[in-house]
């Protein structure tokens, strides 16, 4: 279901987040869920700092162990925002490691309920109830929709002794009107005594788009992504990572539910519906039209600075531009502390974005004069302020061989987004929280 953009949060939460996490750390090939020193020390992403010879003999060896052979993690999460969207999620991730290999998999279920402005401004409100019924949701009130999404992922990782590592990740997801399959391959290679690590990867996704309002609608969209960069040990306390990311998407990039009104209209809001007055043409407007392809590029710079053996600072800067002329700037910083039995990370993130070339707050002329038009607020000007908190601690430490180590983690993110000029929703506040438990055998 893609009735509303927040609606797809569940999809990407799993598809990109978990798929990557299940077999993510290519420099280790492991799937460590939580980093709390020193019992589960997966290597840092930039590069394991010791050479193979040092690894065998150094006192740091235990800090570079490849982690537990079997890891399982369960997470429950919730996303809610002032745009009346609620996402509940359950997720399970398992991984098994051998000498050079790691296999991992995940299963996730997301339940979404939304009465966002996209839903309430959907034309022919009664059809929104059809959406609810079609997805077997429990809500029958107007102006609200529900859906459930399922996803499975699988991953395989390999790490050689020479500093090379590869990961293969696959994912499949299904919901009422959206199905996708994905595959990705990424890897890394250490150079110069592991002072420099070269990173790279590519992925492809095939998507089938349908509509519960129009059984005849069957659209396709394919997407590809690529990435390249490096991580560099600069000083005994500093690591840089610079990465270039690219993405191309072709096919049906619109939402079959989002409509655009024309003219100098004014809205009236109610709990179940947004009415539009003063439109030119139909008050229901027309389905949005966007270009059939989109190419995006981004450069990401990260710096890790060690303030003390257990305290680190992580500034990050990202700039992007795409073929729809959206330019964005992201600046963030987090402070992290990792002790023997607990870990804390607090951060702030600033996001700024310019609008797509075809985006307008109101399309005041006749619809025939526009080639492209959208009412997607995320294609307009946008600013965001985000506060993040991660806390993890060890519930039980193994006391003998084959014991299980158990960890508990809590993740919170509060966000405030502004959409200057977007009449239907000037701002949105959200809270995203997850609680997880991890077992390491």
């Amino acid at each position, binding site marked *: 279901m893609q009735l509303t953009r927040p609606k797809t*949060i569940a999809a990407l939460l799993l598809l990109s987040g978990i798929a990557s996490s299940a077999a993510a750390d290519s420099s280790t090939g492991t799937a460590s*869920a939580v980093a709390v020193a020193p019992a589960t020390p997966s290597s840092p992403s930039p590069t394991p700092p010791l050479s193979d010879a040092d690894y065998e003999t150094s006192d740091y060896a235990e800090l570079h162990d490849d982690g537990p052979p079997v890891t399982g993690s369960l997470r429950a999460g919730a996303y809610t925002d002032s745009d009346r969207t609620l996402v509940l999620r359950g997720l399970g991730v398992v991984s098994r490691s051998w000498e050079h290999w790691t296999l991992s998999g995940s299963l996730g279920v997301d339940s979404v309920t939304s009465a966002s402005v996209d839903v309430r401004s959907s034309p022919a409100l009664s059809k929104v109830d059809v959406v609810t019924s079609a997805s077997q949701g429990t809500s029958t009130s107007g102006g609200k929709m529900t859906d459930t999404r399922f996803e499975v992922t699988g991953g395989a990782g390999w790490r050689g002794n020479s500093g090379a590592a590869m990961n293969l990740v696959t994912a499949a997801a299904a919901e009422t009107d*959206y199905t996708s399959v994905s595959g990705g391959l990424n890897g890394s290679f250490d150079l110069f005594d592991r002072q420099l690590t070269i990173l790279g990867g590519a992925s492809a996704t095939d998507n089938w788009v349908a509509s519960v309002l129009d059984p005849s609608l069957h659209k396709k969209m394919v997407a590809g992504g690529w990435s390249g960069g490096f991580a560099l040990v600069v000083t005994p306390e500093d690591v840089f990572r610079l990465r270039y990311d690219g993405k191309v998407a072709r096919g049906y990039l619109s939402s079959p539910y989002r409509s655009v009104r024309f003219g100098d209209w004014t809205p009236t809001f109610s709990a179940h519906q947004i009415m539009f007055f003063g439109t030119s043409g139909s008050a229901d407007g027309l389905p949005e039209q966007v270009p059939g392809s989109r190419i995006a590029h981004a450069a990401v710079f990260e710096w890790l600075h060690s303030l003390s053996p257990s305290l680190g600072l992580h500034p990050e800067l990202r700039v992007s531009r795409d073929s729809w002329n959206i330019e964005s700037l992201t600046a963030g910083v987090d402070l992290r502390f990792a002790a023997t039995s607990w870990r804390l990370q607090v951060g702030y993130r600033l996001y700024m974005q310019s609008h797509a070339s075809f985006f307008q707050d109101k399309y005041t002329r006749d619809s025939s004069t526009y080639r492209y038009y959208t009412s997607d607020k995320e294609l307009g000007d946008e600013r965001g302020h985000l506060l993040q908190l991660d806390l993890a601690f060890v519930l039980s430490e193994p006391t003998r061989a084959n014991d299980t180590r158990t960890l508990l983690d809590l993740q919170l993110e509060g966000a405030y987004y502004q959409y200057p000029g977007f009449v239907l929703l000037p701002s949105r506040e959200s809270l995203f929280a997850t609680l997880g438990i991890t077992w390491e055998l």
Partner: protein
Amino acid sequence: MRFSQHRTGKRHGRVLLYVLAISLLAGSGCAHVAPLERERLAGPAMRFEMDPIGAGQRTSVHEITEGGTFPSVGPGNAGAGCGCN
């Protein structure tokens, strides 16, 4: 579109060149840090993603709520994405 596809393509090429140039400069211009000098970098606080699963989930929310954010396919990041708008 404010710019032609030709100009967009040239701009994309320049971005690639910049990344390559910075990579070469960074790789050749830094002093060697011996492995035994990197103890501070070995701690769990010095991982780019301290919690890979949590970081992935959080990033995925940003990809939905921010029009200019999309998933990376590099190591330590998203391996696949639906790419939906």
